[in-house]
């Protein structure tokens, strides 16, 4: 069965420090992969996506993610976090069928220490 695991429920990092949020997926073929961010009380906004090609993808707000097929991972990174990055982050996996659902991880809440 398809699944997405975000092993960290809550992470706190200092402003200016680097960040890595982990995401592992279980899927039978090469999936489409997404990272979304949700600010408090808001909907989800797409940060970046991987469909094919270069396994290192750049997104908005200075985020990047790397697809590692051998590890079934799609970790999100940012070299230097800002206080405005405090939010909840969701990893998601989608199939190549247009009628399929996207499966979301349970989310990682990011707090920023001043």
């Amino acid at each position, binding site marked *: 069965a398809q699944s997405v695991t975000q092993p960290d429920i809550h992470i706190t990092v200092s402003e200016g420090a680097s960040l890595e949020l982990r995401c592992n997926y279980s899927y039978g073929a090469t999936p489409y992969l997404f990272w979304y961010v949700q600010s408090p009380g*808001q909907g*989800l906004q797409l940060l970046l996506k991987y469909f094919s090609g270069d396994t290192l993808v750049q997104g908005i707000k200075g985020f990047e993610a790397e697809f590692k097929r051998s590890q079934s991972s799609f970790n999100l990174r940012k070299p230097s976090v800002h206080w405005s990055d405090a939010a909840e982050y969701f990893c998601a996996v989608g199939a190549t069928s*247009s*009628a399929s659902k*996207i499966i979301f991880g349970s989310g990682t809440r990011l707090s920023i220490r001043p």
Partner: protein
Amino acid sequence: DVKVTQSSRYLVKRTGEKVFLECVQDMDHENMFWYRQDPGLGLRLIYFSYDVKMKEKGDIPEGYSVSREKKERFSLILESASTNQTSMYLCASRGGVDTQYFGPGTRLTVL
């Protein structure tokens, strides 16, 4: 710019009331989705629709129904609201296999 709108940001209803949550997208997307989001449980899919008048149950359809009479509009209906349906409800739309776009959410409180 992509747009998914939801009819209300905040809603307060009484137990037993019939509740309608409306979602409209302007991207001509085939697929539309309703999720509920609760602390510690992430996003859970209630229903989705891949075409007008077509619908499929998601992971937690009990107590909900949906309607899609026009391509741009997908409604979630709580036939008889209960307190355990107090939650944040998120609508989303998706064209083909591409990105799923979300609305701002409706925070529903059932008293």
